[in-house]
C-alpha cells in the first residue's frame, strides 16, 4: 500500500506520459518499416520484389502500348515485411518511416505506389530493352570505365557479339 502511495505521489509532480499525437508532435522509432518508396531510375526489372512479396502487393507489367514496364505496389495488401528491400539488388525499393496509412474507402484502389520504366533502344541493333541502371554497374564492377559504360547501352545479344569479336 505504501509503495503504491509513493508512486501516486511521485506521479503527481510528473508531466503526462501521453503522446500528444493527433494534437502535437509524435515520435518514430529508428528503422521503422513503413510505406515503401520506389525509384524507377535504379530499377532493372529483375522482378525479384514481385517474387518475394509475401502479400502479393507488387506487380511489374508491360504497359499496353509496349513502351515500357509499369511497377505497381498496392499499399493495401503490403505487410511491411521488408523482403523487397532486402532482395532488391540495386535498392530501387526502400521502406520509408512513413506509417500514416489511414484513408477513405473511395481511395482504396488508388492507394498505390507507381513507377514507370521506359524502354531504351539498343545502341547496336535498336531493339527495345530495359535500361541498365548505374546502380547495377556500381554493384557489378569495382571501377566503371568507358568500355563498361559503352556496354551499358547494348542489348544482351549485341553485348555477346561484341565480347566474341
Amino acid at each position, binding site marked *: 500500500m505504501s509503495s503504491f502511495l509513493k508512486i501516486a505521489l511521485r506521479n503527481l509532480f510528473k508531466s503526462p506520459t501521453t503522446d500528444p499525437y493527433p494534437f502535437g508532435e509524435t515520435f518514430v522509432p529508428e528503422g521503422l518499416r513503413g510505406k515503401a518508396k520506389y525509384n524507377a531510375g535504379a530499377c532493372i526489372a529483375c522482378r525479384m520484389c514481385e517474387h518475394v512479396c509475401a*502479400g502479393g502487393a507488387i506487380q511489374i507489367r508491360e504497359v499496353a502500348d509496349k513502351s515500357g514496364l509499369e511497377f505497381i505496389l498496392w*499499399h493495401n495488401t503490403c*505487410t511491411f515485411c521488408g523482403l523487397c528491400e532486402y532482395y532488391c539488388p540495386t535498392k530501387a525499393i526502400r521502406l520509408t518511416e512513413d506509417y500514416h*496509412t489511414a484513408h477513405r474507402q473511395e481511395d482504396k484502389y488508388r492507394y498505390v505506389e507507381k513507377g514507370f520504366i521506359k524502354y531504351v533502344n539498343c545502341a547496336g541493333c535498336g531493339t527495345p530493352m530495359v535500361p541498365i541502371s548505374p546502380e547495377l554497374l556500381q554493384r557489378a564492377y569495382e571501377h566503371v570505365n568507358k568500355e563498361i559504360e559503352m556496354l551499358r547501352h547494348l542489348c544482351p545479344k549485341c553485348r555477346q557479339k561484341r565480347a566474341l569479336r
Partner: protein
Amino acid sequence: MRKILQKIAKKSPWLYRINAGSCNGCDVELATTACIPRYDVERLGCKYCGSPKHADIVLITGPLTARVKEKVLRLYEEIPEPKVTVAIGVCPISGGVFRDSYAITGPIDNFIPVDVNVPGCPPRPQAIIDGIIEAIKIWETRL
C-alpha cells in the same frame, strides 16, 4: 431535444471492436491505443463498449474467415444506424497474405460497407488514431 442530443452525441462516439478471424496482431494494437496511457484514444471522446447495441464506430480486424462470417454479419446487423465502419489492418481490406485461401470468404467490403481503411500489418497506434479521427469526421456528417 433531438438537436441537442445530436450536438452532444457528436463529441462521444463509442467504439466497438469485431474480430473477424484476426491473428490478434491488430487487436493488440487496438488494445494498445485504448488502454495504454501513451496513446490514450479516450482523449478524442471515444470509449470502447461491450455491447454492439451501444456502438457508433465499428472497428473490424481480420480477413473474415468462413467460420466466423455468419456471426460477424449477425453482429454487424445488431449495431444501430447510423454507424461508421473502420477496417483495421491489411486483412479486412484485401485479405493480405491470406488472400485466395479457401478459409477466407474475401475482403470485408464484399459484405459490409466500409468507410475508412487503415492498412498495416499491424498498423501503428498513431495510424489507428488517424483512422478513428477520419471515422469521427464521417460520423458527424451522418448524425
